[in-house]
């Protein structure tokens, strides 16, 4: 399939926009004056991200299914994740302007890095070639390391970065090892071809499995799946809060997207195997995340564990993937992630307001009586938490509903029951924060305040959460379309 240049430019327009944006951001930053708090660079970055998102939507609407440059599939599946990730990162940027302004001198780089991360995600979720998968993941990782350690001189931030770095580098090597085996077995790096070839040769079966396991580890760590999750709590906890928001949402979504595409296109015939393994991993992830979150005293760390727990639910969609049009699993994963991005970004960014008041602490005590001190912030937090807990009519409910439905559809009753049980456990610690906010007497005087940008982000997130829950059909049409294409393409 050969395409002319203009077609390629059209299809890669989101990536190109991001690339240009990133450089413009750096350029703007170079021209920045002292008193500027990075607002200009951030604005450019946000505009670029939103433009890219817009471009993705336009592309989505044209229902493409082309492979560009032999390595990138510009299909609705990828575009869905791109859109979600771009919007998510844009929200993170808007919310973090005030926070970052006082903390770092290199604001332009920060926003540029986030744009680069968006680009990395964009590449990764489109990749149909092992090489590009690896490049995309590593690109994302490297930007993430820098972002996590962005607050130079901040011990926690640095530690978060180095832990993430060491873990990520090793995991990347394992991923690479796995990919090399895949290449060795099939002689190609194109995933669709690999899928075909593996289907035809029985002898390569066990080697394929080895590759699968390694790929699972190498990509699974991005999605913070147990047992590849251990970096996550420390990194989410230590990294600057906007970065944690990014890592636990857009980056994680990319992990799931890539994992989904790889195992669906390269390993379709291993479905019986990965169904079981992913199911087990999902259960482990849920239990470990939720049970550990129970004990946390810092809300940020609690959210870190909670996002591990959430990853477990999301993975259910992949574990229970099937060909049914309504509860196929992948659509559950996607709608879950879509809602989760808004919810978790909201919850994490809201911590900025708390940190500002407390000087960095996000302990439960900081939340005591928040409802009387800052009712709007408390209400938003409660709303995010309720969505995370999966109470209707929020996005969190819709996502859970779809992944549960997929699990039930595959008649994995035990898995469904365990997931349901986890919902209850999780509700306990989410409600615990609400309890502190609404029921407890304040131990701290005075309300917390959020900058305009942050407030906007929080409200937008809340509205989106509600919108996804209520106008579910609108979003489900998008999701289902994406899945249909994916299924038509490979699976």
């Amino acid at each position: 399939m050969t395409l002319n240049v203009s077609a390629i430019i059209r299809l890669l327009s989101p990536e190109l926009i991001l690339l240009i944006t990133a450089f413009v951001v750096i350029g703007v930053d170079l021209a920045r004056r002292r008193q500027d708090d990075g607002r200009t660079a951030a604005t450019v970055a946000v505009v670029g991200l939103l433009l890219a998102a817009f471009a993705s939507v336009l592309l989505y609407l044209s229902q493409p299914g082309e492979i560009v440059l032999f390595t990138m599939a510009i299909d609705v599946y990828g575009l869905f994740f791109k859109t979600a990730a771009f919007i998510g990162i844009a929200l993170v940027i808007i919310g973090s302007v005030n926070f970052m302004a006082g903390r770092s001198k290199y604001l332009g780089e920060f926003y540029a890095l986030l744009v680069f991360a968006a680009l990395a995600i964009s590449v990764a979720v489109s990749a149909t070639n092992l090489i590009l998968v690896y490049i995309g993941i590593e690109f994302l990782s490297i930007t993430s390391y820098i972002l996590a350690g962005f607050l130079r001189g901040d011990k926690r931030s640095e530690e978060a970065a180095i832990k993430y770095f060491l873990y990520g580098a090793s995991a990347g090597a394992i991923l690479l090892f796995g990919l090399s085996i895949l290449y060795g077995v099939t002689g190609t790096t194109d995933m669709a071809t690999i899928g075909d070839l593996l289907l035809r040769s029985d002898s390569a079966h066990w080697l394929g499995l080895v590759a699968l396991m390694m790929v699972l580890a190498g990509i699974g760590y991005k999605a913070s799946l147990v047992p590849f999750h251990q970096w996550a709590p420390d990194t989410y906890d230590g990294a600057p809060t906007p970065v944690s928001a990014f890592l636990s949402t857009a980056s994680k979504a990319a992990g799931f997207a890539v994992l989904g595409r790889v195992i669906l296109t390269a390993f379709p015939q291993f479905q019986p195997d990965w169904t079981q393994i992913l199911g087990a991993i999902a259960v482990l992830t849920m239990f470990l995340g939720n049970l550990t979150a129970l004990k946390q005293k810092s809300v940020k760390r609690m959210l870190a564990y909670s996002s591990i727990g959430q990853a477990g639910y999301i993975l259910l969609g992949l574990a229970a993937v099937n060909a049914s049009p309504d509860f196929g699993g992948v659509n559950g994963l996607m709608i879950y992630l879509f809602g989760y991005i808004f919810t978790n970004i909201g919850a994490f960014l809201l911590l900025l307001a708390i940190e500002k008041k407390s000087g960095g602490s996000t302990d439960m005590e900081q939340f005591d009586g928040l409802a009387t001190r800052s009712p709007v912030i408390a209400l938003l937090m409660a709303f995010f938490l309720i969505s995370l807990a999966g109470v209707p009519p929020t996005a969190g409910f819709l996502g859970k509903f779809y992944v549960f439905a997929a699990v039930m559809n595959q008649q994995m009753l035990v898995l469904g029951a365990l997931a349901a049980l986890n919902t209850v456990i999780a509700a306990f610690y989410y409600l615990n924060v609400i309890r502190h906010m609404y029921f407890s007497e304040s131990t701290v005087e005075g309300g917390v305040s959020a900058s305009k940008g942050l407030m906007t982000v929080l409200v937008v997130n809340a509205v989106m959460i509600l919108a996804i829950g209520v106008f579910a059909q609108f979003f489900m049409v998008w999701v289902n379309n994406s899945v249909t294409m994916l299924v038509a393409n490979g699976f």
Partner: protein
Amino acid sequence: MDLLRSSVLTLIVFLPAVGSVIVALMPKEKEDLIKKFSIWWSVIPLLLTTWLAIDYATNFLRGNQMAYQAKFAWIPSIGVNYHVGADGLSVPLLFLTALLTTLGLYYSARVIRKRVKEFFLLFLLLATGMFGVFVSLDLILFYVFWEIGLVPMYFLIGIWGNPKDRPQYAAIKFFLYTLAGSIFMLLAMIGVYLSTGTFDILDAAAKGVWLNAPTFAMLSFWAFFIAFAIKVPSFPFHTWLPDAHTAAPTAGSVILAGVLLKLGAYGILRVLLSLFPGQFAQFGWIVALLGVIGIVYGAFVSLAQTDLKRLIAYSSVSHMGYIMLGIGAVGVALGMKNVAGAQESAAMAFNGASLQMFMHGIITGALFFLVGVIYERAHTRDLKVFGGLSAVVPVYYATMMFAGFASLGLPGLAGFWAEFFTFRGAFGIVPVLAVIGVIGIVITAAYILYRIIQSLFLGEFDPKRWDHWTTVFGEHADGPTDMALFEKVTLWPLVILMVLLGLWPTPLLAFFNEASVNILSSLHF
């Protein structure tokens, strides 16, 4: 008229939510405005439900149909619809909900003093959840409203609960317990879809659920049942109730006892009965058994209480047992199609259970208001410090007598009919269990008379025994003052209903009987 009929349920359901949004937009200093607005706003659903009842009675009572239906696609890709409708079972319960909501708001306007705006906002939101459950004809919609009702109640208990009663513990227990049940119900609902291809209750019932997969059918049945049984609550899932009721603010307890508990029973009748008649026939005896245990056990435990509110909370366990007994009997009867008289008995048991839903709502609602009346004055609910109030606060005494005797099932007052019909049905179907159940009647009389009436009202009033009296408005007082006007306005409508329905239950019974005949005949019974 047709437009009104097709939109009235939607209006009833969402008006309170709209009201709570409006309250949210009001400045929180304007407490008076918030209170007045909420009360009057809640009157609109009350009027609408009243109209609904009258209209249903005049036009649909012999029509054998689900009236006021409205159906829009919500998530058409999986066949989830916004599908609402009301029949003889839901119409009275809608009215009950509207009535208790208005009364609760009206009462709370006088006694809620902290965080007023949030209270009224949440209370209105709660109404949406409750109305929604009673009109939903789609499983997912049902679940959504079911959960929506959960959240405001959590806040009501936690924030406005009495600090002495561990409200935070009670609130979280209430929430988690209910959630634990309902999340499995969600799985079962998905199962219904996978089996029938629809989430619509009526369609799914017509198609039959898991007809060829008895194991799935059984699992689904239990998932649904446990969710409902927790909400009812049926023994042994009842332990959240005493804590929640005791801790909740007065109006919260009223709604909790008056309406929220009914959601579970309603769910069993509306959802479980029509979707899983086969399993119901098979396991109906367990339902009935739990009901009987609940009746007797709850009554005995009530008898041991010395805290007035906790006593009434446990009495709810006992009274909800009647509902479970009735429902269980209906289930057992489904398996007795060839037995003469089983059909009649089933209809009566159905009527008894649904009557109990309504009657318990007004009676226990009134009782919780009455607890509030004394608590606002004495600031204790310990029965040991009272006595002789009959001579001091005669109006309060009289009101309590009506509610108390209605609660113990005295003929001529509302509670009797529920008991009578339940037992009439149960004796025809599960006589052995029913015989055990009647022990509860005696014990009920014992705790109402011995614990409540005697401790509170009889004997000589001794002002020395308790000296923290205030008036209901918080001013110091030397002894109890009789019910204030707003308390009378709150309680007397309920008392009037108790008497009227006690003497002439026919109008209410007509609704329920219609539903029972329809639902049972739709089960080819």
